């Protein structure tokens, strides 16, 4: 079985990733822009480098005390008149969504890797809902019928020429434009999507979001964004549902500020256009100080805290993977990712993604070929703001895969040769 999984994976990563000039060119452009922006961001705010060390400590504490922080965060959310749910697995999370959403709804979603992890959009569509990704990159990926290929920039592998073609077809069909979009005119492409989604935001029944951090003491979610789509999907519909991985919970609101600042800085922003802070449903006390819920923003807030393998990840010795801020640095630095994009991974990507995929999405057998794609060069560790030791975890994951019989044949054969040699000499 592992050999079949390996062959299928190799075929995908080589045929669609490595052999594609489009992928290579798009990544080359993006990597250069990213590196340049990050240098500017860090030069302008050099304290981020020291702050990252503090954030590592915050994450170490948070992951160690995850169980008590989940409880505390839930209490805070409920205290703020939100509803909090704990989902042990993907299935439990989807069941909660099913009860809350039902069918026949118009839904706007902002970018969330955690929602990708549980295939949320597909699930809601199957229930008979109309769902729109509102982050531009995610929207492009949705139209293409593929999946994101970078954790920050989901359509990083799609050159502008392809985007123009894709949007022209879709927007003409929906009466937004009459002429094809010019492939050089990126602002026009953006404007067209804005026009299309405008309606959706204000007519949506439900808005769905993820979060970059969640403060346990106040129950406040932090959502970093630039496009303004998250604040519209969070703010305009009457019901807001958030799906947040339990590793995002930190003890205090002060900690959450630090975590998010380091995240956006290493994600190459001096400062993002928006950082949304949400602690509860919208409310007013303007008439005789009587608190009434559902003023201009959502009347209901539901927060689903997702475990889905995270506790197991921590307890199996991969706690460092849970510190990940999803800043994307390691992907931009990875020499393998530079020619393969998201094909180096399943749901998550790159070396760090191999760990996440093993525990939260496809399981160890399918994650094994991803672990064997990592060259363990260690550049990711050096460049990661939290100095996460991805190469060490990759070695551990390979060893765990070996114990379960999930090593690809090419490596198995080599190891057999070594084993025979060792026996022979001894």
């Amino acid at each position, binding site marked *: 079985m592992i050999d079949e999984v390996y062959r299928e994976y*190799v075929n995908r990563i080589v045929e669609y990733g*490595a052999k594609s000039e489009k992928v290579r060119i798009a990544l*080359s452009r993006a990597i250069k822009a990213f*590196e340049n922006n990050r240098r500017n961001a*860090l030069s302008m705010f050099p304290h981020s480098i020291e702050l990252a060390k503090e954030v590592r400590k915050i994450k170490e504490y948070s992951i160690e005390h995850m169980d008590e922080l989940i409880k505390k965060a839930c209490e805070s959310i409920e205290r703020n008149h939100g509803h909090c749910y704990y989902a042990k697995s993907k299935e439990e999370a989807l069941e909660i969504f099913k009860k809350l959403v039902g069918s026949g709804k118009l839904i706007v979603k902002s970018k969330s890797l955690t929602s990708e992890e549980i295939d949320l959009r597909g699930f809601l569509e199957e229930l008979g809902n109309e769902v729109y990704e509102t982050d531009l990159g995610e929207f492009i990926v949705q139209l293409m019928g593929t999946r994101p290929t970078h954790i920050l920039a989901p359509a990083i592998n799609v050159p502008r020429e392809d985007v123009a073609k894709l949007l022209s077809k879709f927007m003409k069909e929906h009466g937004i434009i009459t002429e094809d979009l010019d492939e050089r005119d990126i602002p026009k492409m953006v404007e067209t999507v804005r026009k299309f989604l405008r309606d959706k935001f204000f007519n949506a029944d439900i808005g769905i979001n993820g979060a970059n951090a969640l403060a346990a003491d106040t129950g406040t979610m932090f959502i970093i964004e630039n496009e303004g789509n998250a604040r519209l999907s969070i703010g305009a519909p009457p019901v807001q549902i958030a799906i947040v991985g339990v590793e995002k919970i930190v003890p205090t609101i002060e900690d959450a500020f630090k975590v998010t600042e380091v995240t956006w800085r290493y994600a190459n922003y001096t400062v993002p256009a928006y950082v949304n802070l949400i602690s509860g449903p919208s409310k007013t006390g303007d008439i005789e100080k009587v608190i009434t819920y559902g003023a201009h923003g959502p009347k209901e807030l539901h927060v689903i805290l997702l475990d889905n393998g995270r506790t197991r990840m921590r307890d199996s010795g991969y706690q460092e993977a849970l510190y990940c801020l999803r800043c994307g640095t390691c992907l931009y630095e990875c020499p393998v990712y530079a020619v393969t994009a998201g094909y180096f991974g399943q749901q998550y990507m790159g070396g760090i993604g191999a760990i996440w995929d093993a525990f939260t999405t496809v399981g160890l057998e399918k994650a094994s070929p991803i672990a064997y794609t990592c060259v363990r060069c260690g550049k990711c560790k050096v460049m990661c703001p939290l100095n996460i030791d991805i190469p060490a975890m990759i070695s551990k994951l390979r*060893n765990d895969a070996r114990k379960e019989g999930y090593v690809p044949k090419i490596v198995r054969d080599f*190891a057999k040769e*070594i084993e025979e040699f060792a026996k022979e000499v001894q």
Partner: protein
Amino acid sequence: MRILLYGWDTSPRLGVPEICDASVSIIKKMGHEYVPHKSKVICAEAIGFLGYDNLVDPLAKATLKEVEEVVSKEDVDLILTSYAAPYAAWSKERNGFLVQRGYELPVPIEHMATFLYKNLDKLKFKELPMRILLHDGCTLGRKMGVVEEPRKVLAKIPKLEVLNFDHPELYVKERNLKPWDISACPGGWLDFTLPELMPYVASNVIREYALPREVDAVVSTCGNGYHAFKAGVKHGKFPIKAMAYANLVDMALEGVE
């Protein structure tokens, strides 16, 4: 000195026998004798990285036994390698991984770069009018910090221009990053796990880092890295050379004083 060449078998297996030829040539020019070491030379630490921690000790013991036999039979004084992993694992001076586990080779081990560096005063070089991009092997440079030695040796070669393998965009003074921290790996290890991918990774690294610098060659301090670069140059049909550190030094080395 009688020098055991560690990696004798690996180089032809990886399709880079020229590393052996250059190593022999260097040893001879320096007035030493060489002893080839035909063996399974993957290092015991590396088999652990590949997912076989259970083979680390059996392989270390077998390697040690084999080396001890050759050393005593051939009267060897030193073990020399062009590969980073065995040096990183066995070097007593660097408190290598296997040394920490209680293994000790009967004689010292050197990497080609550290060996040349220790003999630097005696080395005589001719002019080598080339512009090269120096790649610090991931294990040797980033992990072990063996970075001054290869550079100091190359600095002694007249007319050789050495560029660092880096991206100026990555430098922010507060981060204190060095070229070896950020040099990109051409993916030599993929040959053991996903060989179809290696030429693509290597050629992209060359395209992004070497071609814009207009160098004559990309030179790696790691034998494994070199074999990936060689595949990358071929794959991309690039008008530059890939070279192992030993090959570059051998081109310039005339002998010892």
